[in-house]
């Protein structure tokens, strides 16, 4: 008895979370997934009806309605959860047994707690807005219906991911979003670049999934279960090395999904997809799944210093890496993509700080979801007006012609660089603080990142909306239709006020039961750090102003540039490395294996056959047709036989 109680104590604070069986509203949470899933099925099977059925006229409405409906359910659930008292905010519902063999038992269960609730709101909320936006953006695409089908599919899969009560179910959603992302990146399949980008995304993600899958297997081998909650409990009994291994394997998975170094290379290519996709999947939601995974697995990371440190390092490297790329790109979407990488780097960094940082990771994740979605949609709106030209060097002075887009984009801009009072300010500030509190170098990296962020975002801002016009002749910029601007406005508003989540530490307290919490004391008072941050941001921004607002921007990217720029334009040679280390040797390997299979293994078989054939022809020649030869054979045989038998006796 004593031993057991001691184990209880040993377990970190997650141990006292006790999921309660779902009832009332919560027993309907599965609708969150079901609605978009069914809608997706309808829209995609609609294919059978050919491309001119009624679905093609109203399909997009159905898809949007599904997203909104599921958002409503999410809100209801969230309100209900607020109603619960803290001890009962982890609700679980077993739907059916997915697979059960021997001791291996995986249940399709909904696990709805504070963390999932926030994600549900983010996914369905931003998701709905982007559905609405897409109605306008994709208005003229012949395969519109399928597009909304894929979007719904994504929403459903993403919700499976965040509502999963079991790591394997999470993996189901995990690969589901991967599939959706594959389909949407390659939505314009007739563009070879799009198809290639889609394939690349899927395969790089698979490499990450390798880690996740192995992690799940290790859980089963160690604990005999893959239920997230039970793993969380059992891991406290596991050895240090097991926890570390799990942590690193999960991190590999996270890197894949969240485009963290070293698996970052796919994200920039992923911009081949339609802009709403980039906003929803590759900015707001899917790419943050890695952060979700780490936070969800807090119990594991709490037990392994090594794993946490790895997370921090990945975060720091990526946030600088992404920022660097962001500075060098002229393609507005790629610039934003770089920034996404870097922002997720922040989240990872925060998550790597352990209980001190989890909450802030999620906080930044949400605010980033708002302002980055906002900016991507803004970029989409710009492209919409510029005949889908993505080169910022062909923009300029758009603020007059696209006022709404400009305003909303500006809100997002201020938020991301962390202008005081805007959402990004609070979330990023928290992260940098706790980074400093934990490790000076991590803090420094984060701080530096903030400055660079300010620099490249200001650059984007200036190149796009200020300066003089550098448009092509046939381009007639115009503001986008309401259907597109309304979502922009909403998101802009959220980007501004999103910071409110942290007032009176609401979000920290809200998440504490899930993530635990602890507070490292800084050497200096918090406001000092804040001042430093603001100062650094100001420097970055003004530097950009000096470089891009004062001089006029060359229409084509100059070639005589610093190695830094060149490296940045080449995505810091990520692809080059992949090609040199994996692709070329791989191709060589397969080619040589094909050869070996043909000549070696199959050759051995056919070779034996030929050998026998030759032997046969040889023997055939013995049959000379001369009776005396035959007689000789008989005589010889007889002789040998006699001698052999005699030899037996004489021996």
């Amino acid at each position, binding site marked *: 008895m004593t031993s057991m109680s001691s184990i209880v104590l040993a377990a970190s604070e997650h141990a006292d979370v006790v999921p309660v069986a779902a009832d009332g509203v919560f027993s309907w949470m599965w609708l969150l997934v079901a609605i978009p899933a069914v809608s997706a099925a309808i829209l995609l099977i609609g294919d059978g009806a050919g491309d001119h059925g009624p679905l093609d006229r109203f399909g997009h409405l159905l898809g949007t309605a599904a997203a909104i409906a599921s958002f409503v359910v999410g809100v209801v659930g969230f309100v209900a959860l607020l109603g619960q008292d803290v001890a009962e905010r982890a609700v679980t519902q077993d739907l059916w047994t997915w697979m059960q063999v021997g001791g291996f038992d995986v249940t399709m269960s909904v696990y709805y707690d504070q963390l999932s609730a926030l994600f549900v709101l983010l996914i369905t909320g931003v998701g709905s807005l982007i559905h609405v936006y897409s109605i306008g953006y994709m208005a003229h695409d012949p395969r519109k219906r399928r597009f909304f089908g894929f979007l719904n599919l994504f929403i459903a899969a993403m919700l499976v991911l965040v509502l999963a009560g079991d790591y394997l179910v999470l993996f189901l959603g995990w690969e589901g979003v991967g599939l959706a992302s594959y389909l949407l990146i390659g939505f314009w399949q007739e563009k070879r670049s799009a198809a290639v980008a889609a394939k690349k995304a899927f395969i790089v993600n698979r490499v990450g999934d390798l880690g996740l899958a192995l992690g799940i297997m290790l859980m089963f081998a160690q604990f005999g279960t893959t239920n997230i909650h039970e793993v969380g409990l059992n891991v406290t009994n596991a050895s240090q090395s097991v926890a570390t291994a799990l942590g690193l394997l999960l991190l590999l998975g996270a890197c894949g999904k969240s485009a963290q170094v070293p698996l970052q290379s796919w994200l920039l290519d992923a911009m081949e997809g339609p802009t709403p996709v980039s906003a929803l999947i590759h900015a707001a939601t899917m790419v943050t799944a890695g952060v979700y995974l780490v936070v969800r697995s807090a119990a594991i990371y709490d037990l392994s210093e090594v794993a946490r440190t790895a997370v921090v390092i990945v975060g720091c490297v990526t946030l600088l890496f992404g920022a660097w790329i962001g500075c060098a790109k002229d393609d507005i979407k790629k610039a934003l993509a770089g920034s996404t990488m870097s922002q997720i780097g922040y989240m990872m960094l925060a998550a790597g700080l352990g209980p001190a940082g989890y909450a802030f990771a999620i906080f930044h994740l949400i605010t980033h979801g708002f302002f980055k979605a906002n900016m991507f949609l803004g970029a989409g709106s710009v492209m919409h007006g510029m005949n889908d030209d993505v080169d910022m060097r062909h923009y300029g002075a758009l603020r007059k012609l696209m006022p709404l887009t400009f305003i909303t984009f500006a809100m997002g801009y201020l938020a991301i660089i962390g202008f005081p009072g805007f959402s990004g300010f609070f979330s990023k500030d928290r992260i940098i603080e706790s980074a400093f509190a934990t490790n000076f170098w991590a803090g420094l990296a984060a701080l530096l990142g903030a400055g660079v962020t300010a620099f490249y975002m200001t650059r984007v801002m200036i190149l796009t909306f200020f300066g003089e016009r550098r448009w092509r002749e046939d381009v007639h910029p115009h503001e986008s239709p309401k259907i597109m601007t309304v979502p922009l406005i909403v998101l802009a508003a959220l980007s501004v006020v999103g910071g409110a989540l942290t007032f009176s530490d609401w979000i920290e307290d809200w998440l504490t039961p899930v993530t635990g919490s602890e507070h490292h004391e800084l050497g200096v008072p918090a406001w000092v750090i804040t001042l430093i941050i603001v100062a650094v941001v100001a420097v970055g921004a003004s530097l950009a102003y000096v470089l891009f607002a004062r001089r006029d921007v060359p229409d084509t990217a100059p070639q005589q540039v610093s190695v830094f720029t060149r490296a940045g334009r080449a995505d810091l040679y990520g692809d080059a490395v992949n090609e040199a280390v994996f692709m070329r040797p791989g191709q060589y390997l397969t080619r040589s294996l094909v050869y070996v299979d043909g000549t070696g293994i199959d050759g051995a078989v056919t070779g034996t*056959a030929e050998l*026998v*054939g030759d*032997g*046969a*022809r040889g*023997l*055939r020649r*013995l*049959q000379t*047709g001369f*009776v005396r*030869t*035959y*007689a000789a*054979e*008989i005589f*010889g*045989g*007889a002789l040998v*036989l*006699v001698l*052999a*038998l*005699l030899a*037996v*006796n004489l021996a």
Partner: protein
Amino acid sequence: MSAVSVQAIVGAAPSPIEAPDVDYATISPLLIILGAAVLGVLVEAFVPRAYRFVTQIAVAVVGVVAAFVATVVVGAGLDTVDGEVTGRGGPTAMGSLSVDGPAVVTWAMLLFFGLLGVLLFAERRLDGGLSAFTSQASTPPGSADERHATRLRIEHSEVFPLAMFALGGMMFFASANDLLGMFVALEVLSLPLYLMCGLARRRRLLSQEAAMKYFLLGAFSSAFFLYGIAMVYGYAGSFGLAEISTAVSSQIGGQNLLLAGMALILVGLLFKVAAVPFHAWTPDVYQGAPTPVTAFMAAGTKAAAFVAMLRIFFVAFGGARWDWAPAVWAIAIITMLFGAIASIAQTDVKRMLAYSSIAHAGFLLVGMAGLTSGDGVTSVSAVLFYLVAYGAAAIGAFAVVTLVRDAGGETTHLGRWAGLGKESPVLAVAFTIFLLSFAGIPLTGGFISKWSVFAAAWDGGAWPLVVVGVVASALALFFYIRVVVLLFFAPPQGDGPTVAVPSPLTWSVVAITVAVTIVLGVLPGPLLDLVQQAGAFVR
């Protein structure tokens, strides 16, 4: 007229000659067949030419059927004996014959083959109303006399009595209980065959050459056989298998005589069963001889010779098993591999079948490595079953060969067989079934027979032989399958093979052999029972 009686005469000088007592009922099958043969000779002499052929057929068929019935009766009447080995029946006719289980089964088998053979001999519709045999063997090929004889539609109905003599010899061979008897039987079965080989109507040069080769080599090998007998006699002082076995197990000294004798006897027998290196005659003779004769010979000679071999080596030389077994093992291995490999390069159907018969001799020798007695699968039962299955398939296969013809008679070049599947699916399927049986594919008699010889050998501790056997079968498979591919998939050469429409005689042979092959594969139970009930040799 046997050794024992001779001794009796000399032993007590004054005493009157006592008549040898012979149980004629027991050996009636033998007598009936030989009787039919003699009758056949008389028919040749006295029946007018017009009716001769038919009469001969009648005599032969009636003789064979009667003999078969007699055999069944005799077999039913055999009484079980429990000596050191369990068996039934035993020596008769003053110990010169041993009418025991295996002997009776073999008789039945041989008579069955004989009947099928006769039916094939009697086929006259394939070649413009003439049989497969030359009109006058005495006339040189292509000579005016030959054409004249053909025009007169003269026919060699002697083949029937010859066949009967050969058949009688085979039956005698399989049941002879002393070496001298065996030698005589060997010659009685061989001499008619030598002649029959030379009687082909078409391609007479080849036919005559085959006859000569077979004759010279046969005589040559039987000389070895005889010399072996002489040495064994020198060792044991008697021809009786029983006496020899007692000598082998009890007597000291003179081993070399025994060993050399065994070796030479083995040579003679291995020649008959076409085992390497005494096989060389087989392809040439099988190809040159008239196909019906080849069929009869292939099935009959092998059966008789194998049973005789088992009898000598199990009964007489059983005591010296570990002296001869290794040699037999070695020869079995060589033969299996040689037959399997050599057949691959063949382009002539009849030669191909000849090589396959060599390979089968090897598998049968594997069967010799089994246990001599017991209630499971013994050597005897395995070999007997194998002989039935193989014989039926072989006769069937050669029967098919007689039907695939072109202007020059039978066309035996494999290339010309391409596309037979389209020309005559039934025939092609039948031939395929025989080939599959040779290859030992399940649900054919060949499978069960291979299975039982391997099982017997493994039981006798000769699993290495089984392994080699399996490898050899795999090699042989390659060839048989290639022929099947040829029959069904290869594009026919020119206008493809033509299939002559035979009389019911040949059809019935094909039908019967197919049926037997399938039944032995699907329901081998009864025959397996029979051969196992037959028990061991009784001396």
